[in-house]
């Protein structure tokens, strides 16, 4: 996408970031012992903690990722919303209170409260670190996506910006300040989503989205003469070349010295060439957007309806719609989405984004990303089950979610916070369905990254709404990243250095080491954020969930519900969970594509590892607990 700097957005953005930083310094000034750094001293009110829970959880993945995936893949994006919320059931019913009764500051402490085993400390701190990093990647990617339209800056600048701000916050304050940041942001996010949904329903559906200042681009359709599958003549255009990629015929045409790509399809039995969007990377480093340089601004936002049907009649626009009507009308209509493919044209690398018409009925069903219908392969069905399993089991095992159980006084408060969080998050996820669909059909999508669906939709409704939503989304990323970095610095400083290496740090030194660890993890996250640019952030978060579900959950569940669980069983299961899920992720099609080896050449076709790695970890904890039973039960005094 080609973005302008928005001055309004910039002002709001600066105010917001200033507010967040100010707040964290204010709270950070008051307390500085290690208990308040890691767990806000256990003094947070349950309602504040509940909304902060929601704020923690509604990360970039929820707000940016789910909306984006719904806009591009319809119902499949909503699968993430369903799974992300269902995960709270596991957290609330099985984990929340027993865990609160066990623990101190970190996941590791809780797991180890009955054993005092160094192996568990090591395994658990490593798993906390790995999960946090996998959760950090999508946040950083989202941050980079956000600053592009907001400030007109490149992706990597956004990643560094977020990294730097968060490192400052965390290194200066700790958990108390992040709780208030999350509270503020969680509340704002829900209110803003309500406003956005109201706008969407008020506007209804139209064939010609866009407004006077930003008219929607009309995509050209040409009538070529064809011979078999080859284009022979196109009136008024000079035929340059054509090539078949993945069963689609892409045709390069030239007019007035400008080269453009079209895709060959048929409409009503006649061949039609449809305009595509292209980014051509020349061998000399020059980049052309739709055949012209960036300053010509010939690259457009996409996503629209090609046919709207209300009560069996075709209409141009519907006017205001009720929530159910909105969903059912899209189901009856036809959606045009843009898919990406890459091709090589001589020495040029061409990224082509071509339109595909989809019946609304299909758009409102699972299957566009995770193929599960008739004729779907066994792999893709397993992948779907694996994703749903990871989302269900992952939530309760995320270290930065678990850490919030300790920020309230009693188990009763932890429970009330969790229920408030479920209600807030559930309400929000229902709204994402409307925001995502709204973005998909209102001509606002950026073909290069689906992550900006929600903010760009807000932009179509007005600059102010856009700026506020972007600012909140940015704060979302800031808050989540801060929470994650606290969790991982806790794993390094408290679990690894203090307990595993038995350094017996003083309270001051513990905080100091934690802050140094925070800076290191922050820098690492910045680098990964740059590497994973362009991938949907929900998809990336799915991986973090899968690792958490495999590495942590079997250990937690067995510890809480099976008396014979031994320390060897727990540490072995964590190790097996991490290794198995990481191995599957690192050899998955998406990673193969990242390595430049081509997704189709990957060792297997599983994108989501949980279906294999979770049962493996469960088996491990059982077998190792039987083989190496525990010798004595130690009761650890409450701190």
């Amino acid at each position, binding site marked *: 996408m080609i973005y302008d700097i928005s001055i309004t957005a910039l002002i709001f953005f600066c105010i917001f970031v200033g507010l967040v930083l100010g707040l964290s310094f204010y709270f950070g000034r008051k307390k500085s012992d290690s208990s308040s750094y890691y767990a806000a001293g256990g003094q947070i009110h349950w309602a504040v903690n509940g909304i902060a829970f929601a704020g923690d959880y509604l990360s970039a993945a929820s707000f940016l990722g789910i909306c984006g995936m719904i806009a591009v893949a319809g*119902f499949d994006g*909503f*699968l993430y*919303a*369903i799974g992300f*919320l*269902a995960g*709270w*059931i*596991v957290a*609330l*019913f*099985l984990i929340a*209170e*027993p865990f609160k*009764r*066990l623990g101190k500051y970190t996941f590791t402490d809780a797991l180890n409260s009955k054993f005092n085993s160094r192996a568990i400390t090591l395994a658990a701190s490593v798993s906390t670190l790995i999960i946090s990093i996998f959760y950090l990647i999508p946040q950083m990617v989202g941050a980079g996506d956000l600053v592009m339209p907001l400030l007109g800056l490149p992706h990597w600048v956004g990643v560094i910006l977020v990294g730097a701000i968060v490192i400052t916050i965390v290194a200066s304050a700790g958990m108390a300040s992040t709780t208030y940041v999350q509270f503020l942001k969680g509340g704002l996010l829900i209110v803003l989503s309500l406003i956005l949904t109201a706008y969407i329903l008020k506007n209804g559906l139209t064939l010609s989205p866009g407004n006077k200042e930003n008219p929607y681009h009309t995509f050209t359709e040409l009538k070529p003469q064809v011979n078999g599958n080859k284009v022979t003549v196109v009136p008024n255009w000079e035929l340059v070349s054509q090539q078949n990629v993945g069963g689609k015929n892409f045709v390069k045409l030239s007019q007035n010295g400008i080269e453009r790509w079209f895709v060959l399809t048929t409409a009503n039995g006649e061949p039609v060439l449809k305009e595509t969007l292209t980014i051509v990377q020349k061998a000399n480093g020059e980049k052309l957007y739709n055949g012209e340089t960036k300053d010509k601004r010939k690259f457009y936002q996409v996503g629209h309806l090609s046919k709207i049907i209300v009560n069996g009649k075709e209409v141009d626009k519907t006017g205001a719609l009720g929530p*159910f*009507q909105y*969903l*059912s*009308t899209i*189901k*009856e209509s036809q959606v045009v989405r843009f898919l990406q493919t890459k091709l090589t044209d001589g020495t040029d690398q061409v990224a082509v984004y071509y339109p595909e018409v989809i019946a609304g*009925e299909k758009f*409102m*069903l*699972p*299957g566009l990303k995770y193929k*599960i*219908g*008739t004729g779907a392969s066994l792999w893709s*069905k397993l992948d*779907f*089950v694996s994703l*749903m399993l990871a989302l*269900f089991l992952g939530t309760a095992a995320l270290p930065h979610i678990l850490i919030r159980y300790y920020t309230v006084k009693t*188990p*009763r408060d932890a*429970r*009330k916070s*969790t*229920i408030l969080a*479920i*209600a807030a998050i*559930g*309400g929000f*996820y*229902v709204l994402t*369905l409307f925001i995502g669909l709204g973005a998909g059909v209102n001509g606002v999508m950026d073909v290069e990254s689906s992550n900006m669906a929600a903010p760009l939709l807000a932009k179509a409704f007005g600059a102010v709404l856009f700026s506020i939503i972007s600012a909140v989304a940015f704060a979302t990323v800031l808050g989540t990243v801060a929470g994650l970095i606290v969790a991982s610095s806790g794993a390094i400083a408290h679990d690894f250095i203090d307990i595993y290496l038995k350094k017996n740090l003083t309270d001051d030194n513990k905080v100091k080491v934690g802050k140094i660890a925070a800076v290191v993890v922050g820098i690492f996250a910045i680098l990964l954020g740059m590497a994973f640019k362009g991938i949907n952030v929900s998809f990336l978060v799915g991986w973090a969930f899968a690792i958490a579900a495999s590495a942590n959950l079997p250990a937690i569940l067995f510890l809480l519900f099976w008396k014979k669980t031994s320390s060897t069983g727990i540490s072995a299961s964590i190790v097996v969970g991490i290794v198995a899920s990481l191995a599957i992720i690192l050899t998955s099609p998406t990673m193969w594509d990242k390595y430049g080896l081509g997704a189709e050449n990957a060792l297997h076709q599983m994108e989501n590892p949980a279906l294999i790695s979770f049962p493996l970890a469960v088996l491990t904890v059982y077998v190792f607990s039987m083989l190496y039973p525990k010798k004595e039960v130690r*009761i*650890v*005094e*409450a701190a």
Partner: protein
Amino acid sequence: MHVNSTTEEKEIVTQQKSKLGVRLFFIYLICYAGFVALGVFNYELLSTTVFSGLNLAIVYGIGLIVFAVIMGIIYNYYCTKYEDDADKQEELTKGDQR
């Protein structure tokens, strides 16, 4: 075992809550697994229009979200009741001893 449970009654409350939690969890698990199983084994059924022009996929999906919230409220209601009952019981016994 549990660091916070100082009295016999509280241990019972813990068990009651834990039992309730496990039961509710399995109820939800069945509903959730039902959705996944439909997707894998009877995908076509998800496209059936069930309510106000909405297909089963949407209704089931939103239903799972709403159901989670309702179950959370039920769970909190009973847990609070168990805890309050136990507290009352404790006060009564204390009164008797005096």
